[in-house]
């Protein structure tokens, strides 16, 4: 009855994460308040081990557990992204939690469980499994969003996220049901054609509902409304996680469905096209009007979802699925790094109970804390997509994919949006570099853990911006490892 050894080993990263999470919860009562810091190390070691153990699935791809999981280059690529994100968030959270006096083991455990869910989403070859992964990651993040229990905004954030997220998963589930009705299977690979005649529409409807459900998760317009409130209210390190990890996992699931189910490509194409355009414009125009950094970054992540949707549309449009998929994957890696860096920076600079979150609070930061300001400026320029930063190459690959699929208008709209985005990213840089310093609060010290996270994110932003060759080759391999329509 016990599953074969390879199957277990292929799931090794998720198993390690789960065990570490349980260990964290069990061990916490035995630690007094002063020694709680050990929890961070444990969580970091657990995530690090999981990250290291992705070597096994990377070298031994295949299906696992009677075909409900498909471990291939694609799933490993996404898993490495989400686990690296989790690792950096864990390290970057420690000082924040101390400051807010919410240093608990369950916080880290929830991050780890959420990561398990994301890993399952990335490797699910079967829709029910995907649903379980989605729920695991979602429920963990609902709790995390409300982690500043006594702050009303945090509770509001979690409540909104929970209600709207539940709707979204319900849509997704109903989509699965209809798809099953049409094709008689929940296995993606077997879902080529409807079984019963006249079931085409049922399949289309199922696919549409699934797109709605996942659209919520990636904050694609018109399902993006929850994003700014939730991102603003949640603790900043959790926002860093939400903005990069679950989004990557949801995109992975979308991609896998798109690449496997032939009907999805044709049926989703225009929906994706319209959604991409809407998402870019809504995100960018709303971000223009923000005075709160966290909210601005929230809207900016909506617009970035739009950019990724452009690549996704490119994957849906042509026979060159791999090119679009690789562009999405590369952008997900790039995006996770820069967004995570920006949010972790904000979480530290915000100070106690996130007091300094207005753009105006950052006035003259470059004079007071030049290195920190330079780091934040780098993330902003990368989000803006200026060359020698990762953001530029990410966008470059999206452009390449879009033009290869002859989506010239979409490429031009993306170009226009990049310029609109320049206004609000540059405004923060203007405030930091060109205004008189704001002396109303003392410079915030940068603890070594946060410094480490920011250094890794900054180094990664440069690396992916200057030497994309290796990672792009991996993304390409990952894209080609998908089963194909």
């Amino acid at each position: 009855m016990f599953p074969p050894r390879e199957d277990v080993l292929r799931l090794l990263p998720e198993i390690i994460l789960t065990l570490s999470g349980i260990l964290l919860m069990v061990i916490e009562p035995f630690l007094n308040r002063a020694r709680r810091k050990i929890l961070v190390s444990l969580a970091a070691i657990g995530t690090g081990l999981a990250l290291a153990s992705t070597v096994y699935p990377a070298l031994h791809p295949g299906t696992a557990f009677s075909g409900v999981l498909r471990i291939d280059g694609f799933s490993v690529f996404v898993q490495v992204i989400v686990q690296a994100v989790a690792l950096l968030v864990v390290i970057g959270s420690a000082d924040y939690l101390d400051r807010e006096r919410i240093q608990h083991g369950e916080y880290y455990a929830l991050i780890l469980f959420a990561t398990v869910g994301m890993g399952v989403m990335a490797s699910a070859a079967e829709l029910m499994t995907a649903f379980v992964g989605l729920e695991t990651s979602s429920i963990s993040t609902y709790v995390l969003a409300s982690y500043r229990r006594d702050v009303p905004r945090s509770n509001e954030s979690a409540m909104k996220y929970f209600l709207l997220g539940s709707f979204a998963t319900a849509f997704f589930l109903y989509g699965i049901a209809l798809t099953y009705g049409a094709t008689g299977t929940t296995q993606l690979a077997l879902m080529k054609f409807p079984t019963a005649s006249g079931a085409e529409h049922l399949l289309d409807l199922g696919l549409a509902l699934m797109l709605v459900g996942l659209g919520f998760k990636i904050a694609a317009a018109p399902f993006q409304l929850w994003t700014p409130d939730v991102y603003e209210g949640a603790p900043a390190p959790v926002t860093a996680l939400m903005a990069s990890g679950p989004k990557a996992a949801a995109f992975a699931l979308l991609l896998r469905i798109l690449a496997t189910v032939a009907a999805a490509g044709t049926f989703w194409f225009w929906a994706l096209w319209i959604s991409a355009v809407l998402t870019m414009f809504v995100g960018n125009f709303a971000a223009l009007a923000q005075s709160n950094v966290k909210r601005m970054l929230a809207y900016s992540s909506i617009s970035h979802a739009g950019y990724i949707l452009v690549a996704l549309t490119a994957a849906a449009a042509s026979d060159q699925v791999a090119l679009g998929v690789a562009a999405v994957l590369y952008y997900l890696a790039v995006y996770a790094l820069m967004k995570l860096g920006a949010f972790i920076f904000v979480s530290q600079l915000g100070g106690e109970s996130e007091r300094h979150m207005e753009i105006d609070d950052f006035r003259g930061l470059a004079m007071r804390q030049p290195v920190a300001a330079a780091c934040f400026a780098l993330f902003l320029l990368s989000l803006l997509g200026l060359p020698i930063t990762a953001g530029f190459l990410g966008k470059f690959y999206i452009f390449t994919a879009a033009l290869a699929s002859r989506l010239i208008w979409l490429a031009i709209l993306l170009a226009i949006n990049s310029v609109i985005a320049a206004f609000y990213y540059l405004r923060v840089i203007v405030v930091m570099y060109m205004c008189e310093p704001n002396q109303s609060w003392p410079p915030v010290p940068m603890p070594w853990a946060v410094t480490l996270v920011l250094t890794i994110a900054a180094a990664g932003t440069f690396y992916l911006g200057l030497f994309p060759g290796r990672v792009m080759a991996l993304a390409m391999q990952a894209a080609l490892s998908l089963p194909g329509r």
Partner: protein
Amino acid sequence: MGGALMHSPYFLTILTFLPLAGTLALLLLPSNDHMWIRRVALVVSLLEFALSLLLLRGFALDSAAYQFVEFRNWIPTPPIHYHLGVDGISLFLVLLTTFLTPISILASWKSINQHVRGFFISLLVLETGVIGVFVSLDLFLFFLFWEAMLIPMYFLIGIWGHERRIYAAVKFIIYTMLGSILMLVAMIWLYQVTGSFDLQQIQTMLVTGQVTLSLRTEILLFAAFLLAFAIKVPIFPLHTWLPDAHTEAPTAGSVMLAGVLLKMGTYGILRFCVPLFPEAAHRAAPYVAVLAIIGIIYGALVAMVQPDLKRLVAYSSVSHLGFVVLGLFAFDPTAVQGALYQMLNHGVSTGALFVLVGMLYDRRHTHLIPEYGGLATPMPVFAAFFLFVSLSSAGLPMLNGFIGEFLILNGTFLHHMGWAFAGAVGVILSAVYLLWAYQRVFYGPVTKDENRTIPDADHRERLILAVMAALILWMGIGSVSFTRRTEASARNVFMLMQRPQAYNARVASVPSHTPFSGAARSGGVR
């Protein structure tokens, strides 16, 4: 030592990145040691200038080929190479950059007292970016430098500029980005058609007919490239960012902006727009020429009525660059030579004018012409230099401006008599606004009491001005030493415009090259 460097396979890399390496030296200095920061920055920029002079020594005269070429693999998919090279078109633009950087550093010696280290770092990073633009032979690499160089300029204007600096800085960067992002789309499109980002490879494919662009594609690509360059030049009516950026920038920023950054636009037209898309260029030429002529006359007229001396010089740039564009779109080897020469002239003369205006500003903290008057009495040396530079900018024979304008008008006249006539009006107008401004600032009685005791140029300022004046004179009488180096490349542009078959005979074909093809796909498990 020089020879060894010159023959090194990394010569252009060293030349490009030396200023960037110099910023590391600046970072090691304590941030409040202003004197040493200035000295080190100056030494780095002088070293860079000396290094760039080696280009002249090693440059083969009669060759239109790229020299000092470096070619290395960089990004495997899509194939992007680290490809550098210099030809007659870029040679003197590189030298202009390395010449103007130490001038800018010297000119800001005393006027920059805040965040001194950041200022000189920005200036040196800017130098690397601009040289990179001029030596890149890969479209992707070119774009990388083209955009990356925006950031130091943005900071130069935004941090060390005058009152409305933030507005000017943001306007500058947004305008440029708007054009360049569409150019990026066009570059990728070109790559989809040709399968290469390498300028030389693409050029060869187009000339030999291995790849043909449909006319519609060619026109669209040309338009996207031209838009980016036209904003940079700037061609009327896309010039509105320029007066703000120039006026608000610190002296060094204005010198670099007028001296070299604008040339990136005309360089781009000559390097990419015209040789890659000749048919579209020919069709667009009448329209562009009209815009250029409007720019020449409009710029001159607006300059005439400016009460602000720096704005006057800024608008004179619009007018002068109009000449360059006119020369480029006359499709005549002489005019192209003239355009190239005029780019250098404008860099030196307008650079010098901005330096002079900056020196006045250092003394009186205003750019307004009515604030001055009769300055020739208290500052005779300064007045003499100002007159000399104004005359060069107005195109007095024996000085540099004349040669460029003459060559452009001469070449243009052969093909389009009307354009030449209209352009010649600009020559007259430029004498009007420059000499009139000169008269109001320097002649007559001293009207303001503050101006009676205004100090004349000191040693540092005399050094800067003497060097620039000497160059202006040399470029006026020794122009052959420049033109014989640019001639082969200027002619070569017309070789590159050749296409094997006539356009009307061509089917609207879009070659179906697909990127990432071959190895990547066949290796998969699909």
